[in-house]
């Protein structure tokens, strides 16, 4: 059961990697506008 003491940090650490990736995506503006880019192809200019 001693394994749990380092399995927990590993599990949390992996999740943390994904959290950091997600926050990076938010910060770089990837979620700022989810509607317009899909429609941009339809506009003339």
């Amino acid at each position, binding site marked *: *059961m001693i394994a749990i003491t380092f399995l927990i940090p590993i599990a949390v650490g992996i*999740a943390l990697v994904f959290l950091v990736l997600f926050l990076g995506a938010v910060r770089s503006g990837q979620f*700022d506008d*989810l509607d317009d880019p899909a429609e941009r192809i339809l506009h003339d200019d």
Partner: protein
Amino acid sequence: MAYAIIRGAGLERYYAERTELPPRPEPLRERWESVDPEHLDDGSCEIRLAIDGLRCASCVWVTENVLERTDGIRRVQVSYATGRASIRWDPGQLDLGEIAGRIASLGYRPRLLGSEARPDRSLLTRLGVAAFAAANVMMFSAAIYAGWLGSMEPAYLTLFRWASLVLATPVALWSAAPFFEGAWTGLRNRILHMDVPIAIAIGVLYVQGVAGTLAGFDTYLDSLTMLVTLLLAGRVLESGGRRRAAEAAVTLAATVPGTARRIVGDSLEVVASESLLPGDRVAVGAGEDLPADGVIVAGRGLLQRALLTGESAPVTVQENDEVWAGTLLVDGAVTVEVSVAVEGTVIQQMAEQLRQAADRGTRPSSTDRIAPWFTAATLGVALLTFLVWLPLAGGAKALTTTIAVLIVACPCALALSKPLTAAAGLGAAARRGLLFRSADALLDTAAVDTVVLDKTGTVTEGAVDIVAAADQDLRVAAGLERYSRHPIAVAIVRETVARGIPLPASSDVREEAGVGMEGRVDGALWRIRSGGADLVILEGEGGYRGLIRVGDRVREDSRSAVAALQDLGMRVTLLSGDDPEPTRRIAEALGIEETMPNTSPAAKAERIEGWRAEGRTVLFAGDGLNDGPALAAANVAVAMGSGAASSILTADAVLGVPSVGPLAAGVRVSRVCRSAIRANQARSIAYNVLAVSAAAVGLVNPLVAAVLMPLSSGMVLAGAGRVERRVRALERSGPEKTGS
């Protein structure tokens, strides 16, 4: 104004960077004091501000209520859809800085229009952190619950509890902050909304979690993280449906050319349209938009007034005729004497009406109306539980039971029911071609009982088309009209080619703008002149007279769309600025009995307001800029996707396809959503009554809570998932007449 000065001085970077600092009241004051608001005749001032950070309809309600109770403020209108506020106040009693400070004290960020908005990313960041913590805490909790069955060494139990607490702490203290802020703002202003019971539940959950971890008893931290995650997801969904539309008026103004050619003595000078003054004379050539309102003093031409009237057929204008900024001189050349300065032009007044349309207030949703009762009931039951258990089982048991009551009373499902169902409904409507701007717009549509359709460009294709003409007349006409760029001429040539008639050779063709054409075809002299809005007269030698009827072609599926709306119990009316005869002809083709021809934009709006006063709920579908007032007056405003940009920006919904067919589908989706939300609200209240009762008699422990809470939210989610299926069932069962 202030922004222009700041930008002129190259100081905009200073503000862009300065907003990163915590707000300091003093420099903020100075910035607002340099703003020049609009001074009204009655001595009051008016300004339009953008307010960042409005998260929900309740925020709008709070802001409006608080400002309205402030002395010196006469009128406040806050729009959730655009994040803008229009405020009228008495400058003798307070200044703009104080108003801005008041808004800022509520936790929102007022700014001048024109300064760039930074998108609010904090909600997503909070959601990310909450979801990360929830997933991990649930993993630990699963281990703890499994430990109940077997045996778990106390050391590991403590380890799992501490790990849960470490992960739940940022969720409770940071991710959930919007709920605490909302509740606090509400309480301070004596307004109870849904954030209050949510904040109570989260607060109690966390305090109990800290105490449990320290003292070694069971905690509900898994429920805490999951609740916050679900609630934040609901918020993100709700704000996602709302697009920060650019101000409609900006688009409208763009249709007025930026420059004009002013006549000075014998020469022309190019000046900004804004600087034109009454009495100035400007030259306008073929293909140009008019820069100002005025009167023609020389020349003649063809004016396309679609911007103002919505009718695409151009009319002849000549000396002493009134013309308007933003209209298009299709042909000819005129000199216009400006009659009013830019602010007074018809198009500017229309822009103002459009602004007001975009600012239509948001009323609190039914969920917000339940909130005070809900909070009071929860607190009452909690107090009762404590008082009953205290003499029966002592302080410790009474406290844990009361805590359980407060925790399971969290109105999570209730708060989620509207955003989740509306998100499903918005998707279902979008797949059918109707794009709603907001959840509120979607839900409003369910109550619609009167549908008003604009004629030109909405039920018809909006382009001039040949309705009836003999082949030989068309052939001769096309021979002359091939040299003209008048829309009717273009339609005649197009129809001739479509009928496979070769265009004849012609000579000596002369066009007199706004009057007609003359020339030789096959050696004979022919004249073409207009015989009214929908008739072209062809005159030949020897008194020959041929008639070509022009008009607007009805869209193919308009008839079946009208029939579908009538099947849904709608009263359908056709409105048009056009003459009675063509309007009646099209109404007949569509199976509409009620028509209103010759209706000006203002009269359209008046008519719709009249119906609303009779207690009817009106949906208006139109395409032109001139429909702005009517769009504003209707309960639900629908714009054609191909229509004018500003009508799209102010509308509640946009038709994604050139057809009114999706209207009926949109009404169906809306009705399904409204009943689904009502059912969900009823279910989640029933759940709360059950869960609170169970908690009050001491039957709830962390595992029960961890199962019950997602169950209630899952119920709401399942209800939302059924929206699409129920809409399809309705489409199959509904008697659908076809246009045949």
